[in-house]
């Protein structure tokens, strides 16, 4: 209850900052940046696997967000909106550097908890995720790490929901192989 109230208050004031930023208040926008940069950069880093590229994507994300603030609906989540922009920016940057791998069509993912049979070190798991093919990694990061549904992740990535599930299935199989353990 208290947490819900705190969250509501935070969101209220985030909306207030968005309104001020829409009016051209850069100080308000900087506060929004400080609040969200970690999650945006974390997503960009996992999608690009390159710290410098992730920094560029993060900067572009916030610049694009500033330009598009007038289109943002304050009743929706700013965090999700920024993530959508970050995904678009990261995908665009990646397209410049190479084609996206084709996906085996027969693989389909069902509901998964993404728990590990045996705990592993964070860095080992991050490395295993980083070594996944781009499409599988994108779907995994959005769905298993950031908690977006299959549909939301698919929309962000501009792919069909079935394709997203297939990528997740592939990601799970590859993680299982690379970590040498079951991913449930």
């Amino acid at each position: 209850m208290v947490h819900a109230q705190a969250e509501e208050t935070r969101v209220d004031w985030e909306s207030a900052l968005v309104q001020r930023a829409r009016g051209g208040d850069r100080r308000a926008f900087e506060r929004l940046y400080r609040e969200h940069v970690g999650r945006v950069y974390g997503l960009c880093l996992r999608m690009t696997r390159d710290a410098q590229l992730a920094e560029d994507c993060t900067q572009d994300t916030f610049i694009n967000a500033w330009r598009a603030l007038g289109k943002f609906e304050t009743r929706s989540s700013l965090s999700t909106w920024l993530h959508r922009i970050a995904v678009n920016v990261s995908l665009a940057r990646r397209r410049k550097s190479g084609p996206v791998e084709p996906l085996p069509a027969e693989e389909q993912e069902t509901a998964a908890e993404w728990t590990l049979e045996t705990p592993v070190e964070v860095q080992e798991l991050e490395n295993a995720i980083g070594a996944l093919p781009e499409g599988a990694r994108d779907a995994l990061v959005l769905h298993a790490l950031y908690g977006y549904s299959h549909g939301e992740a698919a929309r962000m990535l501009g792919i069909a929901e079935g394709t997203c599930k297939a990528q997740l299935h592939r990601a799970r199989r590859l993680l299982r192989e690379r970590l040498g353990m079951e991913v449930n």
Partner: protein
Amino acid sequence: MTGPTDTNGRTVASLRELPQSIEPARDLWPGIESQLTALPAQDSAQGAGPGYRRALRLRWLAAAAMLSCLAVGIWIGRSLLPGAAVGHLPPSTASRSTVPGLAPTALDAAYVSDPRYERQRRALVRALQERLAVLPPPARAKVTASLAAIEKAKKDLEGALGQDPGNALLQELLINTYQDEMRVLTDVHEASDSGRGI
């Protein structure tokens, strides 16, 4: 890929346990800000989508408090000061309980710690009580309602600060509300000092 820097040796049993937030190695804001500065003016003029029209509860409260103060100031200046009748109203109606805006709160000390402020405020409150006692009922009701709106805004802001004590915006709005209250009190007090009467 560079992973989170504060996870040395930590183990996780689920992908959901991985940190969602990773801080970049350097502050990216200066670069962002410089690019925002370089944007054409029309890009920074944000449009008014459907969300823009949605009022924000706490922001409205602060705005309401400021508007109330402004309205009271204008009303005092235009309607009360020039020549309203004096002494034809019962003084007994101006009790402190009719002025909810004047009750000190726990957070007063945290944000308004200057003893001079407190002394001045107390003096103004006493003067206000005298002025309220001789005001016509409609005028007294307006002043009281305005101070009540300010008090409600203070309480709401203090409540929000209780949830988020470090929020600079909330602190700023709360101080603004204190200043609004002081402005109303001062207006009434100066009217009394000038001898113009209400």
